[in-house]
């Protein structure tokens, strides 16, 4: 700003000259009517005005010029410069004293006005920053808003560096290239962070750095570093501006700390929910594991102790029950395992290209003993594209959905499976002719441990939750609805995946080639 003042100085002297000339013109007009002593007053008025508005230099200039012109133009002998009358020296002295006094007063007033204005601006800027920050919870949002404001207020670009668990800083927001490719700049940041004081450009520590590194101070020590690459370091280091920058850094640190606390609260809440879920799982699982186990124990102990009294038919019936319950137990354990893998994030998709028709076939094959002679129809057009999925997992989804349909639909009614190609996806729907879903439960049934009103038909309420987990892991969707005409319909939509492979037509003899053409065209 000093530069600005200096550049404008000649203009103020010009103004000062104008004022004196104005006073002279007025005096020339007043001369015939008033005493000379009164004419001096007009000059004094001009000097006071110059002192108030233009500062000391122009005011002194105006005083000297005023006395000179007064003497030259109005004091006889006129149009000569000889100071014949020493009383005008007193006039000059008074004028100079007034100029100096008033200009000092004016300057102080100006400084006060300016600092009041700056205070107002600063609080407005900080208020707008904190207003923005209050609305943001996440770390990246906070940092982005902070850097945006910094750019607006200080016309400087900056980056924020945050420490990892070991206390090593890395760039968390802003353009990392501001720090340059060199390690030293990061070293300065690290030093400022470890020492908890500003360093780098404009400070006494490592001033030859590219950036000014300010610690972001939280209530429990440094949270990170704000590294500012200023457009003009001298302006940035002007005491007022620097204080504003400090306040700015504090605001950012405060917001960061608040965000972190919110995160911790959220983590604690999730932990609590997980605990709740785990105990729900435990009670649910132990109930559902015990039922088949009770049957198996009962049957086998009966056979052990009273084998002789049982008819062969009774014995066979009991053993069949035990075998069925054991199979149920096995499915249950399988679902529990799948759920654990889904939850722990240990699920790794082994994708390759598969035909959905083939996976439907595999699920039906595995369901054979459970299904008995229940009619199942599959409608899958041959032109369905291959999809990029994990076959074992998708077969599990189809198996669970079909098992669910078998469980809820009356035994004579058919289960209908339909596969269709959509936009970049394949859609499979499984429809049963059972009682359908209770209204409002279409989304709930995919929640863990949810049991339908029919309830105790076995299962922990995990089967559909697993379906959803697997389908969503594939980037697909699953939904349930009541079908028109009764029964429930489950639909999964699986994206085809990118870069579908091509299988070139088989080079073969003519009749066989025609056959392939027939297949493709069907």
């Amino acid at each position, binding site marked *: 700003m000093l530069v600005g003042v200096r550049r404008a100085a000649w203009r103020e002297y010009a103004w000062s000259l104008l004022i004196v000339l104005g006073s002279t013109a007025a005096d020339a007009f007043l001369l015939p009517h008033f005493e000379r002593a009164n004419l001096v007053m007009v000059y004094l008025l001009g000097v006071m005005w110059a002192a108030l508005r233009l500062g000391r230099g122009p005011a002194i200039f105006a005083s000297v010029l005023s006395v000179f012109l007064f003497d030259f133009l109005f004091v006889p002998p006129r149009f000569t410069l000889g100071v014949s009358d020493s009383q005008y020296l007193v006039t000059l002295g008074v004028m100079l004293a007034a100029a100096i006094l008033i200009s000092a007063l004016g300057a102080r007033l100006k400084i006060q006005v300016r600092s009041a204005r700056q205070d107002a601006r600063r609080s407005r800027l900080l208020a707008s920053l904190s207003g923005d920050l209050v609305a943001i919870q996440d770390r990246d949002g906070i940092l982005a808003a902070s850097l945006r404001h910094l750019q607006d207020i200080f016309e400087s670009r900056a980056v924020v560096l945050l420490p990892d668990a070991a206390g090593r800083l890395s760039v968390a927001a802003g353009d990392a290239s501001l720090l340059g490719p060199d390690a030293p700049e990061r070293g300065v940041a690290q030093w400022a962070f470890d020492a908890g004081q500003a360093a780098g450009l404009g400070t006494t520590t490592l001033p030859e750095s590219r950036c000014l590194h300010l610690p972001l101070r939280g209530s429990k020590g440094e949270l990170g570093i704000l590294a500012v690459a200023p457009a003009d370091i001298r302006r940035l280091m002007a005491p007022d501006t620097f204080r504003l920058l400090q306040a700015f850094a504090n605001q950012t640190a405060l917001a960061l700390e608040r965000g972190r606390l919110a995160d911790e609260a959220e983590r604690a809440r999730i932990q609590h929910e997980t605990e709740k879920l785990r105990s729900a799982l435990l009670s649910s699982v132990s109930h559902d594991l015990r039922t088949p186990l009770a049957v198996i124990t009962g049957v086998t102990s009966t056979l052990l102790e009273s084998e002789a009294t049982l008819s062969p038919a009774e014995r066979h019936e009991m053993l069949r029950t035990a075998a069925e319950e054991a199979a149920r137990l096995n499915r249950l354990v*399988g679902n529990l*395992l*799948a759920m654990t893998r889904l939850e722990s994030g240990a699920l790794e998709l082994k994708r390759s290209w598969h035909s959905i*028709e083939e996976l439907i*076939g595999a699920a*039906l*094959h595995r369901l054979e003993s459970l299904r008995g002679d229940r009619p199942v129809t*599959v409608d*899958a057009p041959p032109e369905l594209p291959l999809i990029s999925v994990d076959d*074992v997992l998708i077969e599990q989804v189809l198996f669970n959905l079909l098992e669910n349909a078998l469980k809820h639909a009356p035994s004579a009614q058919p289960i209908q499976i339909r596969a269709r190609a959509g936009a970049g996806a394949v859609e499979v729907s499984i429809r049963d002719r059972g009682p359908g879903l209770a209204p409002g439960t279409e989304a709930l049934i995919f929640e863990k441990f949810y049991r339908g009103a029919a309830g105790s038909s076995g299962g922990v309420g995990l089967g559909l939750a697993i379906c959803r987990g697997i389908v969503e892991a594939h980037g697909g969707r699953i939904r349930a609805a009541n079908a028109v005409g009764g029964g429930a319909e489950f639909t999964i939509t699986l994206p085809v995946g990118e870069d579908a492979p091509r299988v070139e037509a088989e080079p073969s003899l003519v009749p066989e080639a025609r056959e392939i053409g027939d297949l493709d065209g069907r």
Partner: protein
Amino acid sequence: MADEKAQEPLILIVEDEVQMLRFLRPALQGHGFRVLEARTGEEGLREAATRAPDVVLLDLGLPDLDGIEVTRRLREWTQVPILVISARGREEDKVAALDAGADDYVTKPFGVRELLARLRVALRRSSRVGDGEASRLTLGELEIDLEKRRVTLAGDAVHLTPIEYRLLAELARNAGKVMTHSQLLRQVWGPAYAHQSHYLRVYMAQLRRKLEADSAQPKHLITEPGVGYRLAES
């Protein structure tokens, strides 16, 4: 069964869990097997060398040696049929064991009927090695004549493309046994195609449409998810 009684096949069970042995021993003895037991991989390898069993039933989860390693070491010197026992969700173990030379697998928990069916397939295949390949295979209405390269369905000739035929023939030569994706791809398309499993999907779909009554509910060309394909015998 009558000729089996004269010389009952000797089965070597390599399994460390006593409960499993308590179920397997009587079940297999009751169905015409002589049973030999080993509790560790090393013991299994020793027994296989000294007693020359007709078939090996090998659990993949052994305390000392990896079951896949046992398979590999057995295959260094013997073609004895190996049936591995594995768990669901461990498909890559099954594939590794099969690619290392195991003949087939059963998934825990399994019923005795399934186990016996797999064992019979394995035994029949090994007895076949001596007197050449069976050239004809009848599966319900489907008949495959490998010598004449003819496939008929309910007496009508089925026209297959050369690749379709090679794929079906490969499965037929290993009827009842699971074939991994890479085994089929190598045999039918060549080693360069070992990972191009989409070829397999497309051609299996074509075969099913020509040979199955309902291609979505196949009776013959069975998919084993994550492992491969099997031509079912029943």
